[in-house]
């Protein structure tokens, strides 16, 4: 492999972790899946090789089984996402259960946690849910910086429903970010178009400091419409819709000014 890259501090902004004991609670899990079995910090640090410049990671929810309706009704549909919050609490506080593949020492690697949340259930349910998250997370709650509800596998219109927008606005008001997972390649161009509309709706009439920040996961989801097969630099540049959409996303994203501050301000001295 090529030479070692320059030694800037690294944060891995997107990883998933799960213990073998809880794989049955993952919505996508089956024994034949290549991602079967335990994927804990022991496996992860082996994969990274623990370079000296490595600061840590941000955990993203891993699509545990859930049910929006029964979640709102009596909380039962939220059981497995909350079990994931417990798992991340053990990682972040360094209190592992035997055999779950992480140590007390490794807790410092966990820089932020982004659990699942029932965003389509609206602000009131979301507030109740986050209250439950706080109880489960205990001392790790401060690391929970945002939430994700995947829309890439949901029907058209999901992210434009009033309750969904209301949920996003609630997250912004409380200072949480929303991690957006859309899939233009697998799901279709409408997902990107709806996402732009969703961002605009969620920011409409909201004070600047309460606008929810959108973090776009998996850039390939947005930029690989027809992937490698069509050598598409020209296609992308020549496509006015695409160009317009990316510009609109850019202008809709919150915190433009704050990101233009000097990089040094973002780093510890």
């Amino acid at each position, binding site marked *: 492999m090529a030479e070692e890259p320059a030694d800037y501090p690294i944060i891995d902004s997107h990883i998933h972790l799960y213990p073998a004991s809880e794989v049955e609670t993952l919505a996508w899990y089956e024994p034949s899946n290549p991602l079967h079995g335990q994927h804990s910090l022991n496996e992860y640090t082996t994969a990274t090789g623990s370079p000296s410049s490595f600061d840590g990671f941000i955990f993203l929810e891993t699509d545990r089984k859930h049910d929006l309706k029964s979640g709102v009704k009596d909380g039962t549909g939220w059981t497995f996402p909350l079990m994931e919050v417990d798992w991340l609490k053990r990682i972040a506080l360094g209190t592992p259960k035997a055999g779950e593949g992480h140590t007390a020492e490794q807790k410092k690697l966990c820089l932020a946690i982004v659990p699942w949340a029932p965003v389509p259930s609206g602000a009131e349910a979301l507030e109740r849910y986050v209250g439950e998250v706080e109880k489960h997370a205990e001392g790790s709650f401060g690391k929970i910086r945002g939430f994700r509800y995947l829309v890439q596998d949901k029907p058209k219109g999901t992210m434009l429903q009033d309750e969904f927008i209301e949920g996003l606005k609630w997250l912004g008001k409380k200072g949480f970010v929303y991690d957006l997972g859309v899939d233009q390649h697998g799901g279709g161009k409408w997902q990107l178009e709806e996402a732009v509309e969703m961002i605009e709706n969620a920011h409409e009439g909201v004070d600047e400091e309460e606008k929810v920040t959108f973090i776009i996961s998996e850039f390939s989801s947005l930029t690989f419409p027809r992937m490698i097969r069509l050598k598409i630099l020209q296609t992308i540049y020549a496509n006015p819709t695409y160009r317009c959409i990316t510009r609109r996303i850019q202008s809709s994203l919150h915190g433009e000014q704050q990101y*233009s501050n000097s990089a040094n301000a*973002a780093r510890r001295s």
Partner: protein
Amino acid sequence: MKLSGCFSEMPSALKAAPVDEIFLALQPYLAVILATFGPFRIMFGSDWPVCTIGVDDAWKKWRLVVARFCDLASLSKAEQIMIWSGTAIKAYGIKELI
């Protein structure tokens, strides 16, 4: 915008290709991302363990692809720091590292 999730979208021959070849294949997309969002709103991410499907040493390989991109795009030191960690610190409000 996260620089992550790329291996999942690649044909298997490309997944197995050397870092330089992967970089060349991704270059058009990376150029668009950089022009659209700028280094101050791009962050490194691996999507581990999803990135490991069909890829040997996926995490280390992806790190090298991103490093090659930073080099060849002639990004300044400040810009590279933002991609490797600064943007994530700001966007997620990570307090421990400020």
